[in-house]
């Protein structure tokens, strides 16, 4: 087990390094005139040059990268070129918002998807068909449309939730829930559809296995067979899908945070990328990559725990 963890961590670090180099240089290729973007369109060329010099953008690219990487290794990710805020402060401030959304969405997806997937597999018939149709619909509709629909209906028309903004749980737990409910639902729909299908499929497969027949022949009630034994055996693939969905949701949070004006990492990523704010983009990339690596590792460990066969392979 320790060597398994070490191997995965080493792979994670390699991925992270590759990502950093690629992102840095690709951003440079895309953003030709960051200094102009910072000082504004009406500024004279002289002011643009002054800004370039101030940020060190007039130095060779490789020197700039070495400078950034050197500081990053010591934990200093620099300051945002646009707001002057320390990148680490920006990330620490914004990460909780995005984590609220993604973890909330994973929890909601897990509960709803496993429940309806299990019902579909256990009951079959009309319940199964309904789940199937809803799953296809859920994965077909783009996230931003769902977000817009929820905002218009439940925030604007019905007024049950705020349409935009974020309240910290330390200020008000109820307020916090009210600000993240719609975004979490918007983020969950696609995942629920995917995971429910996964759970349904693996449970139907498991129900055909010999041990189920054996359990049934011993007179165990149907409910107990399905929800205890079969569901547990089918939970491995569902967990993998959920882990994958978490990563997808991190991407989906970009759109959802824009629609609901939530000050999360996604919102920062959008504005920083369009502006060419390289230090901030790099910070977002690093933290996202670290989270993705950790989530994958956690999923693998949970899998191994649930199913000893994984440990052997």
């Amino acid at each position: 087990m320790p060597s398994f963890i070490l191997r995965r961590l080493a792979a994670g670090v390699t991925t992270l390094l590759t990502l950093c180099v690629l992102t840095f240089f690709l951003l440079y290729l895309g953003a030709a005139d960051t200094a102009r973007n910072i000082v504004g369109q009406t500024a004279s060329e002289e002011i643009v040059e002054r800004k370039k010099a101030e940020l060190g953008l007039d130095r060779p690219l490789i020197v700039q990268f070495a400078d950034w990487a050197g500081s990053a290794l010591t934990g200093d990710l620099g300051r945002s070129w646009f707001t002057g805020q320390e990148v680490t402060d920006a990330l620490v401030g914004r990460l909780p918002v995005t984590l609220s959304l993604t973890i909330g969405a994973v929890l909601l997806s897990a509960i709803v998807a496993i429940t309806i997937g299990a019902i579909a597999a256990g009951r079959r018939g009309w319940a199964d068909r309904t789940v199937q149709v809803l799953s296809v619909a859920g994965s077909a509709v783009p996230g931003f449309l769902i977000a817009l629909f929820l905002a218009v209906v439940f925030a604007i028309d019905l007024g049950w939730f705020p349409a935009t903004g974020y309240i910290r749980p330390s200020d008000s737990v109820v307020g916090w829930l009210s600000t993240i409910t719609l975004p979490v639902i918007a983020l969950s729909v696609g995942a629920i559809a995917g995971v429910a299908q996964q759970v349904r499929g693996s449970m139907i497969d498991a129900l055909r296995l010999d041990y189920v027949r054996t359990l049934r022949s011993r007179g165990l009630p149907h409910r107990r067979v399905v929800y205890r034994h079969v569901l547990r055996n089918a939970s491995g693939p569902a967990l993998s899908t959920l882990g994958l969905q978490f990563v997808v949701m991190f991407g989906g949070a970009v759109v959802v945070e824009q629609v609901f004006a939530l000050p999360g990492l996604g919102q920062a990523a959008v504005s920083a990328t369009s502006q060419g704010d390289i230090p901030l983009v790099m910070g977002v990339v690093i933290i996202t990559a670290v989270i993705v690596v950790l989530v994958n590792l956690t999923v693998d460990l949970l899998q191994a725990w649930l199913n000893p066969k994984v440990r052997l392979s």
Partner: protein
Amino acid sequence: MKHSNSLVAAIALGAATVITLTSCAGTTTEPGDEAASVLRLGVVTPLTSFAPWEASWANQSPYLQAVYDTLLTAEPDGTVTEGLATAWEYDDAKTQLTLTLREGVEFSDGSALTAGVVAEQLIKFRDGTSENASLLRSVEGVTAPDGATVVVTLAEADPGLLGSLTKNAGLVGAEAMFADADAQTSPIGSGPYVLDEGDTVIGSTYVFTAKDDYWDADAVHYDEIVINLYGDATSLMNAVKGGQVDASASQTPTQIPEAEAAGFTANIRESDYTGFLLVDRDGTLNPALGDVRVRQAINHALDREALVEALAAGYGVPTTQIISPSNPGYDEALDDAYPYDVDKAKQLLAEAGYADGFTLVMPSNDFVPESEFAIYADQLAQIGITVEWEKVGDDLFGKMLGGAYAAFSMLLETDTSMWNSMQFSMLPWSPWNPFKVEDPKLVAWAAELATAEGDRADEIAVEVNEYIVEQAWYAPSHRLESAFFTDADTQVELQVDNAYPYLWNIQPAS
């Protein structure tokens, strides 16, 4: 069962982590307790910097006005009035301005406002990286003969200076900011509010709390101001409709009917103009544009009524002048100097030797809808001008201002003073005169305008405007109407010379 329970435990742990993590930081847009009055403002432009010497203005003014005072201030009609300076006086040559500072003003760190701080501030702005650093380009030196007197020496007379001191050039921050690495994010001003850094999420939500002892208590209408940035047109409209803002700038004219339907008042002001800048007036790059008849033909080719409908959903005023009604050079008759007339345009082109038309290369970009370029090209094609759009990315401004194009379509700000308008785009040294075209008449008028006063100044302004319209230096289409939305509990007085109303002019509805 042990394994299933572990899964549940893991999930529960995850939930606990969220709650712990989220309690560390974040923001609030909650109105707060009922006793405190809160103004929630929507903005569409992120703040560049709280450091006064890097500060922008226009749509960024509310962030800065919350925490800073300016040396002078402006009435809604643009009239210059007292600010941190209570008196100001020019010498006869108008190259020396003496300002007398208000007594007893303190910054939020407890330090006192002194002439020395102001003097250093002005020089820092002139030499800094603010978008508008050139507002102080005529400043040669600043001295502080005593604690309350500031003397500004100019290289040449600058009639725009007093106006500039009501804007970002006049912002004054405490001395402690000058060498502070956090100056961009931690303002220390003498303004009516202080930034609540704990509740602020930089780049998203800014929370300001009123000071108890502000020198101009009448200008403070709320206990707290929350400024929310909406980078996305949809989320801005959702915030308006969902009641998450009390007042907000608009992003596009098409939002006006939506906001009105949501019960907001759309306070409309004419702002920037849009259309073409025919910058190659000497025909350096494209000889055709060197002929005034060609430039006039382009003006006659624009169906401005149709453009207002197509580009601004009807929220615009067709015009053939770039000078706005708040500028003394404005002449209503010049809004219709070149009526839409395809035959006349073709005739002018033929007279200039371009009966078969010509090709005009212009830049297109990603932040204006593709359809807009198609409409422009279509209108020019009707008189035989073939537009070749060249897709340009982030280097658009560098290329336009560097003289890569003979003409381009653009949306540009208007100014309340003709002298400033001339400095911006009509003189050999103007940034928006990329080919540095020198017209002796304009240079002479600018020199006269530098020291002219009263009626004579207004006369020159009108003469300049008539001349550039006649010479067809530009082919504007319309002045855009922008809206500032206010809900039923909020009232506002707009500012003629600024995109965003001044903070103290946004008040509870009486």
